[in-house]
Structures are given as C-alpha cells and as structure tokens.
C-alpha cells in the first residue's frame, strides 16, 4: 500500500550512542501534498529530514520514495531520485554570483566530465531566468550571493532546489529570520511551487503554518504525537500539553 504515497517512511529509527533521536517513526506523504512538521526543540524534526536526504544514516526502518528504497543510497543518488532539501541556515555559495549559484544547481553535467563539457546554452539561461523571476531575484543575477539580504539568500536556496524540479521538496524553516513582507511573498511562493510536487516543511511560525499546510505532523521525542489538519492538531490535548500549551 505504501506505493500510493510519494514518500513512505516506516519504523524509522536512529540512535546516537544509545540516544534515540528518531524512534520508530512512520510517516506517509501523498503526491502533491504540502506537509508541515512542527514540534518543540529537540523533537527530531531536522533529523528526520537528515535521514530522508541521506545526511544521517538510519539505524533501522525504511524510507521509500515513489517505491524506491532510499536508505541505502548515497546522498547524490537521493537527490538524483528527485528529493531536494533546503538547510536551516541559508546554504548558498557566497563567493559566486546568483546566476552561478543557480547554474551549479542546474541538473546537467553532474559527473566530472559532464561538468568539464557543460556549456551555458540558451535552455540553461532561459531556465535560470525563469527561476530567478519566481524567487524574486531576477534583478540580482550578477550580484555576488554573499551580498544578498538574509531573506533573499533563503529564496536563492529555494531557487537552487527548484531548478532541479524535485518531486519532493523539503524545507527546513524557510521563513526564519524573514521580515513580514518577505514572509508574505514566501507563503505565496510555496503555494505556487507546491503544485505538482510533494513538500515537507519544518516551521515554528504557527500563523505561517496555518497559511500553507495541507496536513500537520507533530513530533515529540522522535515520535509522531499527532497528525491531521491544523484545526485538529491544535485541539489535541497531547499536543497542547507538550507544545502549544506552555
């Protein structure tokens, strides 16, 4: 039955020297769904993303993406399978221009010789311009990425993932450190890009979560505490106790 889902995480466990950061976690994400994961600090949210994208290797359990087992794949194969991940702090190449940042992320010429032979063709340029418009950076293509504002860096990283057109996009706190107007734009951006792909977003800002989430999963001590729409989760007494209540 797990084949109906875009992502099927089953009995996922990872322990660091005996401490179980993620404990027997089971989670299904449907195609075209935008799932938000919330939970108090140390609940294991980022670790779950780390496990899915291969940054951390699981101690046990399985992660199936469109029916393909990911736990044995090295990181770059997971990306090539269609899973993109944005890190918590903007992770971009500060010394390169916005254009070069997007170009490096363009999913062609990923082998050593492919990258030696890679040419910036019209197709590539068109795609870069298209993405730059989407992430509100079309005027900054030649600007050095390190000089962008914090919010713009967050957008750039999202753009670097979008250019790869991943079937599953995972964002770790995409609006952290953004101004109110930047948040507005980001919510709108996420709404637009969630068409045709599944997304997992970790977020603390409840207003923001309400705006974007199709479904919410609450993690606590590495386990799923509650799952459902925002309304249901917010009124779950267990959730109120560990998270929303205090």
């Amino acid at each position: 039955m797990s084949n109906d889902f875009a992502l099927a995480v089953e009995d996922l466990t990872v322990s660091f020297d005996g401490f179980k950061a993620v404990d027997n976690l089971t989670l299904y994400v449907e195609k075209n769904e935008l799932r938000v994961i919330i939970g108090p600090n140390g609940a294991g949210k980022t670790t779950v993303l780390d496990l899915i994208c291969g940054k951390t290797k699981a101690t046990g359990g399985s992660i199936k993406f469109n029916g393909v087992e990911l736990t044995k794949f090295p990181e770059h194969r997971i990306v090539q399978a269609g899973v993109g991940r944005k890190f918590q702090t903007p992770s971009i190449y500060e010394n390169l221009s916005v254009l070069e940042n997007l170009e490096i992320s363009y999913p062609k010429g990923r082998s050593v010789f492919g990258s030696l032979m890679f040419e910036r063709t019209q197709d590539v340029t068109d795609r870069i311009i298209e993405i730059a418009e989407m992430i509100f950076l079309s005027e900054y293509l030649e600007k050095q990425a390190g000089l962008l504002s914090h919010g713009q860096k967050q957008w750039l990283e999202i753009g670097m993932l979008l250019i790869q057109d991943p079937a599953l996009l995972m964002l770790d706190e995409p609006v952290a450190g953004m101004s109110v107007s930047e948040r507005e734009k980001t919510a709108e951006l996420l709404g637009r890009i969630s068409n045709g792909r599944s997304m997992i977003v970790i977020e603390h800002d409840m207003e923001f979560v309400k705006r974007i989430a199709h479904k919410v999963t609450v993690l606590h001590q590495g386990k799923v505490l509650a799952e459902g729409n925002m309304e249901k989760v917010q009124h779950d007494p267990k959730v109120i106790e560990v998270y929303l209540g205090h």
Partner: protein
Amino acid sequence: MNAFYNRWLGGKKGTIELAILAAFIFVVLPLGLDVFRLNMVGKYLTYAFAAVGLVMVWGYGGVLSLGQGVFFGIGGYCMAMFLKLEASDPISTAHQTTPGIPDFMDWNQVTHLPLFWEPFHSLTFAIVAALVLPAAFAYLIGAAMFKRRVGGVYFSIITQAIAAILTILVVGQQGMTGGINGITDLKTMHGWSINTNSAKYVLYYVNAALLLGSIMLCKYVLSSKLGRLLLALRDKEDRVRFSGYDVANFKIFTFCLGAVISAIGGAMFTLQVGFMSPSFIGIVPSIEMVIFAAIGGRMSLVGAVYGTLLVNYGKSAFSESFPSLWLFLMGAMFIGVVMVFPNGLAGLYETYLKNWFEKLLSARLSVRSNAIRGGLPNEQ
C-alpha cells in the same frame, strides 16, 4: 576562437599574464643566461609543474597534499628507467658480471633484469607510464580517502606518510632502484645525446612549452563548471552534495590532475638534469613544493612559476655562500607566508602593483582605442 581565448587563456587578464610569463621564460631567460644557468632554470621550472599541480589541488581543491614529490618522482623514475636501459646496452656494459643490465644492479649482485623493468625498453611505454602510473596511484589514494570523507589534516598526514614510505622503499631496494644514489649516468634518448648544449636548449624549450600547456589546461578546467564547483565545494560542501553531485569524484579528479602535471615535471627533470634520485620524492622535497606554490600565491597558476623560480634562486644563491642562513630563511618563509602574506606574490601584486600596472596598461590602450575611434572621448 573566442572560446579558446576565454577558456584556455583566461580572457584579457589571463592572456596578459600568460604572455608576460611566456616572454619571460621563452625570451628573457634564454637571452640573459648562459647554457649552464639556463639548464639550472630549466631544472627549477620542472619543480614549477609540481607547484602548478598544488595550486589546483590545494588552492582550488582545498586539500593539501604533502606527497606531491611522490608523483614528481614516479614521472622522473619512469623516464630514468627508459634512459638507463638505453645506456646499459650489452656493449657498453661488457665489463660487468652480467652485461646488459644497469650498473647498480650489477653492483648489487642482481643477475637479471627485474620483470617490471622490461617494458621500459620502450620509450612510448615509459612516457605512457609516466602519465598513467601517477594518475592511477593518485586515483587509488584519492578514492580511498575522499570517498570516505577523509580530508583536511588527515589527508595531509597520510600523503606525507606515503612520501616517507616510498622513499624508504626506493632507498632500501638498492638492487632494483639504484637506492639512495638513484638512477644516474643517463646519456641518450633513442641515440640522441641529452647532455650536449644544443640538447639542453631543446629540452629547455620543450619543458617551458609543456609548462605553459599545463597552465593553460588548468585554466581550461577552472573556467568550466568544474572550476566553479571547486569554489562551491570549498564554501558549502554539503550544498554541492545535496545538489546531486558525487563530491568525492571532483576531488579525486583534481588530485589526479595535479599528480599528472607533477609527473610531467619529474620526467622533464630526468631529461634535463640527467639523473633521478629518491631525494626528490620524500617528505622534505614534497613540502618544499608547497612553499613554491604558497610563495607564488596558492590560488595563482602563473604565480606558482614565479614562486618556484624565486625560492630556488634564493636557495642556490644562499646555500652557496651562507648555507645555515638559508634554512632560517626557508623556515621564515613558511611562517611568513601563512601569517603575513597568505596570498603570496600574487597577493602582493594585487594589493600594491595592480593599480599602477593597470593604469599604465589602460593609458596605452585608451590612446590606441581613441585613435581607432577617431578621437571619441573615452568613457573613463
């Protein structure tokens, strides 16, 4: 043509840099020096290959190899083995207990040519081996380390240990390698004497051309997406990995490229100097190659050449008259290049000379372009 200009030469700035370097080593040095001194400069220029390799591996690849001498040595030994076999024909070695084998083997009571020496009767094989062996060895080390995410100081220490092991091995296996003296008394290549003055000029120019060719190859690599990936890797390795790249492969490639370039230098060293010995593969020569690159500027390909020439000129000038002072100076260079001017000569040029130089250049250019445009005011 335009692609060649932009990618192999590095655009306007790169072309000017290369032209100045080419003029210096192709014209100024041969005109200004007698054949003995020129041969010495030729020897230094072979070290420059190793330094150029290190600019790629260390400056751009971000991994400090302390075993660059290993690759220089493999290249040099491959060439030396061929030349030695040619010098050890049965007639000129008739006085030996076993004629037809290299003299040092005879001295060490070796009675037949070891199997791995056999193919080095062929020059083609020797040249191919001088390029392929270092690449294969670098691939082996690189794959074992980078695939397991070993980098930083661990990589440096292990490459240094490999340099130490190889030296001990070569010195210890005297009967097969010539031991501490190395492979000496090399005379001819396919009957062409490498010791005459005219041969020294020819070899100097071949070497200089290969050096410029190697620098252009590196420029080409750096101008490709691979070059930008190397910069990206040093900044955010994880981002590159999570953009779908197998990061280790790019480091392995750079390490192999650096190894092959060093090996070309080693082979040219053997040809120009007429011998090869373990004193060029160990810990000390390997780390000295790092200082050549560091003095030139660890991110500057042409700087590596100037750095090598400067340090070696200093070494020969000082160690003739004040040998003890030289080691102090060498030590001070290591400390100074790290603490005071981390970008070496290239950095000094950028901060102090560049403005002056560009003013000079643009003044000339604008005079000319004004003439072409019929006296239209320059935008500056």
